[in-house]
């Protein structure tokens, strides 16, 4: 095993995890993986979406218990029952979604849960503010400790998280894509900070998609793929090409037999779709995206987390009428879509990424969910016709192979795959022309995935135009007739089926932080 620890002094090994395995219902998230952090070094953890990086991080931070495997802290085996235990042992984690209490001050956040108290048992604000000021000075953050965290920019909030980690005397700090939401200047500050943390002997695990950043900060890299450990080596001994090659190469255990349909006329065309960032003025989530999809075609949209895939579909579907610009044509006719209702009337359908939060009314039945977007079809003189409803729902349940004891079953009792099929049933019942699918196979088991692939294929054959967003390379290669790659809100590449390779797609999807 080419572990970097092999030639390092044993005492330098701050944190080591070996044989870590974690299974969620239907998914093996981690399978016998390992990672090591050395004192004063930064280990960059790389991998595609779904490689298991987040799960690993959550296990190291005591958020999730591993099913198997061991964690050693400075050579001693440890087992964390909760995040607090991990924190007290010296492991801090800085999540992408920062964990600060917005309306408390910087000092109150840093000392949350272990506030210093004075002789009579009241909070010792003088000491809290003094200590916080010292930390802030060290981290070059020019802010009053009494400032409410909500009033700080994201970059500054991140510094507060790091200050909190330092105040715990953390020997290991785990950072999850820390540069994804901060400005160029803040990135520079962060990198200086990382250098100083390393000089103090802190070990860092750094999760990122931006390979360009690594040259400035990384000492080692570790690559995960499909929940398995692939490689680990000093950063100096690798190249960008090699890293990309290590990250790709996932296999669909059973290759999906795609039928190719001759594409028909153009169904949907969008021109220069842009979406302004909700918070950062002058910044865009989607930038000048133009695309077209034809009858019978499956257009795959690949992008990493934060590439703007979901937002692009939402914009087309009329969910951002006030912050988006661009033009949309359906079957050659220009059309104005400023609400989901208008989108549905125009023949669009969107199966959202967050199935439970956005796709379904979980407490309602299969039947009620299926007909929600097409109630006019089962109404007669304004009254719903239960018999017609059951007939229509029965038809789609059969066509999609939804496994449910009855049509009146609440969808929350169904498996993820069947829930996803109910979402599809709802949209097919509106008889759309264009189907927008956002990560339709996320979190469902392999057999349900195959059923969804077959279904998408069949729908295309029956004359629908399909745009499918996916962050899984093998999936998109198997199912798409054509692939567009998004990175940082822009289209960075287009591949015809057959011309695409995993490496080429991933290379186009990796953001260039220095452009």
């Amino acid at each position: 095993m080419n572990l970097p620890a092999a030639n390092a002094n044993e005492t330098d090994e701050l944190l080591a995890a070996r044989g870590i395995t974690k299974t969620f219902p239907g998914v093996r998230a981690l399978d016998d993986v390992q990672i090591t952090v050395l004192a004063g070094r930064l280990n960059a953890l790389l991998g595609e979406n779904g490689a298991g990086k987040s799960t690993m991080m959550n296990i190291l931070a005591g958020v999730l218990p591993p099913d198997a495997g061991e964690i050693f802290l400075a050579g001693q085996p440890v087992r964390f029952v909760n995040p607090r235990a991990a924190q007290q042992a010296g492991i801090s984690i800085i999540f992408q979604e920062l964990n600060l209490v917005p309306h408390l001050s910087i000092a109150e956040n840093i000392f949350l849960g272990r506030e210093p108290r004075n002789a009579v048992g009241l909070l010792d604000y003088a000491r809290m503010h003094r200590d916080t000021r010292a930390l802030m000075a060290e981290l070059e953050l020019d802010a009053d400790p009494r400032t409410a965290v909500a009033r700080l920019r994201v970059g500054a909030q991140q510094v507060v998280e790091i200050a909190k980690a330092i105040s715990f005397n953390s020997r290991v700090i785990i950072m999850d894509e820390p540069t994804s939401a901060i400005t160029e200047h803040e990135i520079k500050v962060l990198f200086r900070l990382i250098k100083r943390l390393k000089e103090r002997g802190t070990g860092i695990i750094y999760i990122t998609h931006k390979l360009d950043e690594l040259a400035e900060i990384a000492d080692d890299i570790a690559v995960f793929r499909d929940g398995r450990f692939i490689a680990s080596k000093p950063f100096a001994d690798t190249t960008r090409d090699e890293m990309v090659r290590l990250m790709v190469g996932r296999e669909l255990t059973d290759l999906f037999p795609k039928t190719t349909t001759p594409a028909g006329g153009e169904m949907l065309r969008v021109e220069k779709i842009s979406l302004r960032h909700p918070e950062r003025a002058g910044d865009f989530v989607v930038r000048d995206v133009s695309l077209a999809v034809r009858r019978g075609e499956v257009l795959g949209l690949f992008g990493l987390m934060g590439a703007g895939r979901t937002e692009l579909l939402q914009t087309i579907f009329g969910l951002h009428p006030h912050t988006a610009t661009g033009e949309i044509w359906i079957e050659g006719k220009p059309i104005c879509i400023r609400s989901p209702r208008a989108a549905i009337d125009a023949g669009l359908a969107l199966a959202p990424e967050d199935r439970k939060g956005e796709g379904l009314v979980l407490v309602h039945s299969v039947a009620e969910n299926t007909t929600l977007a097409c109630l006019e079809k089962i109404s007669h003189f304004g009254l719903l016709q239960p018999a017609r409803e059951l007939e229509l729902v029965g038809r789609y349940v059969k066509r999609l192979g939804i496994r449910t004891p009855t049509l009146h079953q609440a969808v929350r009792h169904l498996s993820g795959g069947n829930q996803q099929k109910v979402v599809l049933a709802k949209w097919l019942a509106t008889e759309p022309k264009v189907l927008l699918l956002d990560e339709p196979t996320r979190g469902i088991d392999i057999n349900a995935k195959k059923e969804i692939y077959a279904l998408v294929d069949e729908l295309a054959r029956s004359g629908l135009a399909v745009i499918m967003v996916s962050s899984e390379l093998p999936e998109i290669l198997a199912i798409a007739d054509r692939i567009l790659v998004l990175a940082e809100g822009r289209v960075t590449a287009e591949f015809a089926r057959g011309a695409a390779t995993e490496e080429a797609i991933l290379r186009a999807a990796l953001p260039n932080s220095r452009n």
Partner: protein
Amino acid sequence: MNRKSFTEQLARFQSFLALALMVVALSLASHNFLTVDNTMNVLRQISINLCLSLGMTLVILSGGIDLSVGSVLALSGAVAAGLLKNGLALPRFNLLVQFTMPGAIVAGIAVGIVLGWANGVAVTRFKLPPFVATLGMLSIARGLTMLWTGGFPVTGLGDDFGRLGTGHALGIPMPVWISAVLVVVFIVVTKRTRFGRHLYAVGGNERAATLSGLAVPRIKLMVYTLGGGLAAVAGLLVTARLDSATPNAGLGYELDSIAAVVIGGTSLSGGRGSMLGTVLGCLIIGVLNNGLFLLDVSPFWQQVVKGFVILAAVAADKIGSRLE
């Protein structure tokens, strides 16, 4: 087995069972209970709460709450009574507009509809939490009632109007007829119309409803408007029954109405429940009050018992869903 409707039936069955047990126990304990007169009495007494609770059920199913119904009831009743008795004086034009009975009734209901609509606008347009929006309306409508009446009851409204509250048709009191018709209408509305289905979806998952193309704000606006209108109907019934619109009418009625909805198995988080459950909830509260009265229990104890019934109903519901 059809699991959703099974649990729903179970919840309904629980309230039904509770009601049946109460009826049996009370008819054994008091021979005055199970008589035609007393039954009509109970039904008439609950008809006011029933009108309010139908509207409250709509609001709660949509994921909201309406605390203003008691005050809206008072203002609607007072406006109808005032217009019927005194007309509307417009000194600037040196004009006195007299109102016929139907005119006064329409005006009263219009007041409820406008106030309900205002609640809806506050919730949908100004994005106020329903609790806060309707709490404001609770105070505003009560204050307006005081202003309109000068703090004194408006009495002497005439026999025609009084019959609305005290009259009978086919031996059944008018308020019972009116509330029964409304019950049927709103059962159909919730179970058999698109609006009803949309309402459940908005309460069950607002985001999913929006993404399915539902006009969520318009649905909510409609819900609060209907709630106001139904409160106005209740206001007219109270006023007609007492032949008097008192400025303190309907004080605290919102709580009885929420209690009936909750006892009837409707979830306060929205999306689940039924009109029929609410009817049972109203009956349970009505029978309870009546029975304790017949048994000569102090009205103060009635309050205590009602409180326990609410807790028991919701606890039973929770246990039921955990068993599932």
